[in-house]
């Protein structure tokens, strides 16, 4: 008799706990979005020839696009420490350096207003709390209208250069 009562009581309590637990799990799961309404990560940013020589900041993409003649590359403006937008500061003397095995003219350095991280012209973290260099993103020319297309989901190595014919 007592065994059956004991069993039924445990069954009831267990069912209650399981019910509450699944309610909790379902509530929590419902808060994890299934559809992203975020801005697309592949963005057209304009015709290559409209970019100035040197650096252009694209605030909407939080991105720096560099142009040296017909060679382009893009570096993120998002600080790798805690995600504030770094600011570019022009160097008094541009430096020629080998970055990723190819020469690159460095015209700026980057400073973060939130916690004081400093980056070199190629995005290398020089001082401050930043743990990693700024990300480099993939650039290509759109086949339809010839605009530059940046892929903010595709990080590339620092040997990346886009040569526009």
């Amino acid at each position, binding site marked *: 008799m007592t065994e059956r009562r004991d069993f039924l009581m445990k069954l009831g309590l267990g069912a209650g706990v399981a019910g509450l637990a699944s309610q909790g799990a379902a509530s*929590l799961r419902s*808060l*994890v*979005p299934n559809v*992203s*309404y*975020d*801005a697309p990560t592949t963005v057209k940013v304009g015709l290559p020839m409209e970019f100035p020589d040197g*650096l252009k*900041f694209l*605030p*909407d993409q*939080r991105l720096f696009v560099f142009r040296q003649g017909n060679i382009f590359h893009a570096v993120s403006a998002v600080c*790798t*420490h*805690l*995600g*504030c*937008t770094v*600011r*570019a*500061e022009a160097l008094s003397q541009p430096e020629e350096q080998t970055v990723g095995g190819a020469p690159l003219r460095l015209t700026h350095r980057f*400073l*973060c*207003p*939130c*916690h*004081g991280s400093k980056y070199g012209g190629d995005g290398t973290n020089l001082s*401050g*709390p*930043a*743990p*990693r260099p700024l990300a480099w993103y993939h650039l290509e020319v759109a086949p339809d209208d010839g605009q530059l297309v940046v892929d903010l989901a595709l990080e590339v190595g620092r040997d990346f250069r886009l040569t526009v014919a």
Partner: protein
Amino acid sequence: MSTPAKPLAAAPTAPGVHPKALWSLAPRSDRESGDAVVSNFLLHWFPAKVFKRSLDWTYSFWLGTITSALLLLLVLSGLPLLFLYVPSVERAYGSVKDIEYVVTFGSWIRSVHRLSAHLMVAAVCLHLVRVFLTGAYKNGTGRGQRREWNWVLGVGMLLSTLFLSFTGYLLPWDQLAYWAVTVGTNIASSIPVAGAAIRELLIGGRTIDQPTLIRFYVLHVLVLPGALGAFFAYHMWRVRKDGGLARADREALLREKAEELPAKTKTYTLLGVARGTAPAIRSTTLEAPDLMVNAVPDLTRRVATAVLGTIAAISILSTLVRSPLEEAANALVTPNPAKAPWYFLWLQEIVTDTTFHIGSFTVNGAFVGGVILPGLLVGVLTLWPWLDKSPASATGVWFARTRRGQNLVFLALCLVVVLFTLIGTFCRGPYWHFYWPWETWPEIPTRI
């Protein structure tokens, strides 16, 4: 107020039946005083009698009461704001601007809410410091005391208060708000493995947008106040269960010691009468009426002074201090410097200084200073009552000699936090560079 003699005499004397329908704020007898506590709902959480010396303002500084008064003010001033604020990324900033510049008394109500919040953070921290330095989380002479758990509840309430402040200053959706969410949620995402998922759950996506605002809004107006309210009720219940302020134990202990000399066993038995469910204080109540006063009016008058004083101070201060509102949230420009409110500046200072490298392996300061160190601090704080091995006689005494070492370490830690807060407030300029307060900051163009 004159009591007719007839109904009083005719009233039944059975327990639980009170001869007077009304209670008195200025009772003329112990009976009337006790009736007040029993028959008034607002006073039901008070004991009938309290230790005189528990009421000394130099013991507790009434910091817990002041904190509760601020919480009350926050709930009251939050109510009209709840009707006026619109939790949408397009309209939040505009609605706060309306509250500030268009709504009648809006600016004052917002100021009451904001100042109470700032002062509540300060009051909660000071309350914690007071409880630590007096060893008030320790169990003294009473049976069934679980003061260590009330301390744990207190740590929970401190965290709730900080999260409430954080979610609160996000709601105007101005620059301060936007970049605080950015930094705050990136601290969460610096946690290895689970970080990205936690951030996505917090902001409801991968970028900060409407789902983020509504999440923090619901946390601010419902989830966190609810949690804090539940904690508060439990906290008060435990204070009663533990026999009042820790200082009360001190009194009981002294008495026990004094009477221990002539007849050891008997006095011990007298205090032991309350063994079981009733707190030991009760036996002292009977044994030492000279140490006790009636809760009404001695306690109620002081509580009223602290609460009404706080309300008056905030009301006046709010007419003098306007609440700031920065530019509307702009994802394109990070302010320079971007500073957190004062109570988070020591953390901002820590996340700046704790990135370290082991060979080619780098640990982000966001994780060390934003997760590990604060986590460790809260963990040790929570467990401290179990780590503190000092004798029960150190309960409820300011700077007890037997707790000197831990008090000094605690004060040193407090000093570091205060120092970092001061550096963050007064010595950090553009790009978080160090400047002395009397130095002028260099001109920095707002755009590249």
